[in-house]
């Protein structure tokens, strides 16, 4: 199999040489793939316009030893709705960065691919202050790091769950508490996100509680990635 076709979301690109780019994409069937797109920085290139981060594409790839080569690209969604809005664009990039950090090359994770496509779609269609936080929680769960939200991670008690500790990966009761405090509203919201009520949770208006969930989800995923995510809240931090 030297050529293969797949659908993909472009996660990021790196300049390569004079006019090429390395394109990192999350494919549906082949996992995270790194491929060279030749000549895309020349403005006459037709490939280039379709291979920017956030783009959803159908690609034909040639398998190479280290890097694959992009031979054809059909746009499925150019993410123009995201690219016209600073907040949506940075939220989208924050999701891409987490996917890039949480996954390894060529390991198929079709569920992660589908979640990413779904979350970018939700963002384009209207967005929600919870899109990124909810996506991080779902991504953690999908990769086997679902936060414990039912009982204390230390003693197993289901009462007075007042703190969230990323080191233990979940809630803590008042007597075991080592992590920072979490509000009961945020706990309920996180349970809805991971308990099959995502759409309802996303409809929640922006509030201190949605910010709290996003903050906790970000810290939790940063712990799994073992590094800070650079794109998260860039303009909230610096405005």
């Amino acid at each position: 199999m030297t050529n293969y076709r797949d659908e993909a979301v472009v996660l990021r690109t790196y300049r390569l040489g004079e006019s090429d780019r390395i394109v990192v994409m999350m494919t549906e069937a082949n996992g995270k793939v790194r491929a060279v797109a030749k000549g895309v920085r020349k403005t006459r290139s037709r490939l280039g316009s379709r291979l920017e981060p956030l783009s959803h594409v159908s690609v034909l790839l040639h398998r190479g030893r280290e890097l694959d080569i992009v031979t054809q690209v059909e746009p499925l969604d150019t993410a123009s709705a995201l690219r016209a809005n600073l907040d949506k664009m940075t939220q989208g990039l924050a999701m891409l960065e987490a996917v890039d950090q949480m996954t390894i090359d060529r390991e198929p994770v079709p569920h992660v691919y589908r979640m990413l496509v779904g979350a970018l779609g939700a963002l384009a269609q209207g967005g929600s202050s919870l899109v990124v936080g909810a996506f991080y929680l779902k991504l953690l769960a999908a990769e086997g790091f679902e936060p414990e939200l039912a009982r204390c991670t230390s003693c197993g008690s289901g009462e007075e769950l007042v703190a969230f500790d990323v080191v233990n990966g979940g809630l803590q009761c008042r007597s075991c508490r080592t992590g920072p405090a979490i509000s009961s509203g945020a706990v309920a919201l996180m349970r809805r996100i991971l308990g099959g009520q995502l759409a309802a949770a996303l409809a929640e208006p922006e509030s201190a509680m949605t910010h709290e969930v996003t903050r906790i989800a970000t810290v939790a995923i940063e712990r799994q990635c073992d590094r800070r995510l650079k794109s998260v809240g860039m303009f909230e931090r610096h405005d």
Partner: protein
Amino acid sequence: MSAYTPPVQALIDELGRLPGVGPKSAQRIALHLLKAEDHDVARLAEAIVIAKKRVRFCERCFNIADENLCPICTDTRREGSMLCVVEEARDIIAIEKTGVFRGRYHVLLGAISPMDGIGPEQLKIRELLTRLEPETVREVIVCTNPTIEGDVTAMYLARALSTLDIKVTRIGTGLPVGGDLEYADELTLGRALEGRHELRD
């Protein structure tokens, strides 16, 4: 496990850090330099050192200059009310070739790139904001590359300038997404400048 002696490997490593030079090219250039005549190599080294010493950034627009201000900033025939914002000084050369733009420039020395952790404060954006009022700028044309980073930068500028009485526009039509501005031909770039659209956050 380098097959080269340390000085040669050091040369290859330095060359490999240059933009557009991969490991193989670095090796080829290094071996070429080692075969070259002493005086040729000395001339190259001297040209680099002198250029680095003499050339600096324009104090006002961060274009490459050999005085405090670049020739465009000192040219009184340029329209001060129009300011074109670009990522790199080489983009000025591309835009100047079109002959369409008669205003002045501001070089950001890069673009906002959230995934690389490059935010507004790492670029010359504060310097841009402090120029606008004293120079009575009425329109800021954002000519960043048609890439995600270029888009983020443009939208950020639209937001940062939204409270001022300044029109913020972006070149667009005809410039294929994903390309570098410096590769655009004059006609396409000229049309894109004329067909710019207003940006609103």
